[in-house]
């Protein structure tokens, strides 16, 4: 134990004397969360809307305003000419056409369900789908408002709401805010990248400098050495994660629904996994450059197939099977589960088994691969 303390003292000294370290610890998590969360944004804004208003009544205007006030739609043209609208779409000028028929106001007064038509330019299917979703939500809100104003009688509300359509209700992320979905995933990536890079560069650095030989000629135990190399980065990783959580709270207003204790428990184990991975790379490579390339090779695959950028369910069958050996996938699931759904330990038992299993395996391999005697 005393020996371990001497190793830790030395490692921490070196880490904090390294001028590149402090920016890595403090700046990277903030920058990554900010840039990635805002940039990797699948929301579609500024959809160009053309309204064909054949009614020109009070409520048709209100509906139009509701669309433009949502922030998703930008009113391109307000017309009563159906033909003109069709030409605009044909010429790529408008994405969505909302047709409000003559008699819209009158139907509403009489508690009749008026029919409005939405036409999407579906060349970009995703865009059209998103636009349809936003429109549905806006119309639904509009109906609620009318009920509130007693424009529509209460007993007629279901008829208005469910007339021939399924209105989805979004749980956990009611406004389909992409950031809510992204931030826990980006936190997972942050912990993974910082942990893997720092640790994979570490032992190999001693090899490059030649100091490893001096260590190998001492009676140091292999596990002491590996632990001495792991624990500092484990502490730094948890610290990074905490900064990330604070940013998520302050900037994106994402509160942790579940228990902080469970969240940190999982992060602690996951960090051991990632550090074990990094140290294993460090023990099998001879230069920092090699270590960097090998870490990148694995990290790119892990991150892209982690379910952050493409949902795992969308992947082909073989790729889905591959994600079972991808620790990033499980950690993203864990973070989303705890942060957004308030999942408890028992909900994440499978992930716990896999993450701790891989952690033990990787650290064991790293200790095994670190040889004091060269053959």
């Amino acid at each position, binding site marked *: 134990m005393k020996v371990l303390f001497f190793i830790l003292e030395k490692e921490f000294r070196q880490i904090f*004397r390294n001028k590149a370290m402090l920016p890595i610890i403090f700046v990277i998590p903030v920058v990554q969360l900010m840039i990635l969360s805002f940039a990797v944004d699948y929301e579609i804004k500024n959809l160009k809307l053309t309204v064909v208003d054949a009614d020109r009544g009070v409520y048709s205007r209100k509906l139009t305003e509701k669309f433009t006030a949502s922030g998703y739609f930008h009113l391109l043209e307000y017309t009563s000419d159906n033909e003109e609208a069709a030409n605009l779409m044909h010429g790529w000028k408008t994405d969505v056409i909302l047709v409000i028929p003559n008699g819209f106001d009158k139907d509403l007064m009489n508690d009749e369900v008026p029919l409005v038509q939405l036409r999407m330019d579906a060349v970009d299917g995703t865009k059209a789908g998103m636009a349809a979703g936003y429109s549905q939500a806006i119309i639904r809100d509009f109906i609620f408002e009318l009920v509130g104003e007693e424009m529509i009688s209460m007993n007629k509300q279901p008829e208005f709401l469910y007339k021939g359509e399924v209105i989805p209700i979004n749980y956990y992320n009611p406004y389909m805010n992409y950031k809510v979905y992204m931030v826990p995933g980006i936190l997972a990536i942050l912990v993974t990248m910082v942990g893997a890079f720092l640790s994979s560069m570490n032992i190999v650095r001693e090899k490059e400098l030649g100091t490893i030989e001096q260590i190998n000629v001492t*009676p140091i135990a292999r596990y002491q050495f590996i632990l001495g190399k792991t624990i500092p980065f484990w502490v730094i990783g948890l610290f990074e994660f905490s900064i990330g959580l604070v940013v998520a709270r302050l900037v994106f207003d994402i509160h942790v629904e579940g228990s902080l204790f469970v969240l940190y428990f999982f992060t602690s184990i996951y960090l051991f996994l990632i550090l074990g991975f990094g140290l294993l790379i460090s023990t099998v490579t001879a230069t920092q450059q090699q270590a960097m390339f090998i870490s990148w090779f694995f990290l790119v695959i892990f991150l892209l197939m982690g379910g952050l950028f493409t949902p795992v369910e969308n992947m082909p069958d073989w790729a889905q099977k591959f994600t079972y050996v991808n620790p990033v996938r499980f950690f993203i699931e864990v973070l989303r589960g705890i942060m957004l759904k308030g999942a408890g330990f028992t909900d994440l038992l499978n992930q716990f088994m896999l993450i701790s299993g891989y952690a033990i395996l990787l650290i064991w391999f790293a200790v095994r691969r670190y040889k004091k005697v060269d053959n």
Partner: protein
Amino acid sequence: MKENISIEVSNLSKHYGKFKAVDEITFDVKKGEIFGFLGANGAGKSTAMKMLCGLLGPTSGEGTVAGFDIYKQSEQIKKNIGYMSQKFSLYNDLTVLENMIFYGGIYGLSRKYIKEKTTTLLKELGFDDKLGTMVSSLPLGWKQKISFTLAHIHNPAIVFLDEPTGGVDPVTRRDFWEMIYKAAEGGTTVFVTTHYMDEAEYCDRISMMVDGQIHGLGSPAELKKQFESTNMDEVFIKLARPNEKV
């Protein structure tokens, strides 16, 4: 183990494929002796030394260091030896004292003891004001002296020095040899490789390595007599280049 023998090696070999880096060397080193391990670059000196220190597994042969078997008890050996590598091996981003504390700590020494011992050793060198200096800012000669101090901070039975005076000026080299003498007087066995032939004269006994084999073994005087030479340079050339006329 014989009472006064510190290192005993017989038929020790290290092969890399067909290349015999070390080819059946046999020798022994007495306690408290300064044993010079001489040879040209690539003769196999460092390889042999690494096998004795437990850094490299031998291909065949036998050996004991400080009474421990080099195959089975390499961790025991490591407790009883100090090693100064050919490559500079202090941490540049730590101070002199921090380096000492780290390595001393691994050997189980207490912080207080390390600090006192380091201060004493550096005082002898007139260097005790540099305890808190970052190693990176020291000149090479001093770094080498500090490395040597570090190699015997834990009072090992044997210190292995791999070309400790490579690249340092003649004055520092002489200082260095004074340090080696002092360590030997204190009972430490010194095993040193070099290719400076003038340094060979300072050793109690030397072995001359040529192409992985030991071609000459004895005190400097014995070797000069055996090879009918007036100095060690001639001995070396006769051994390393047997076909050349001196």
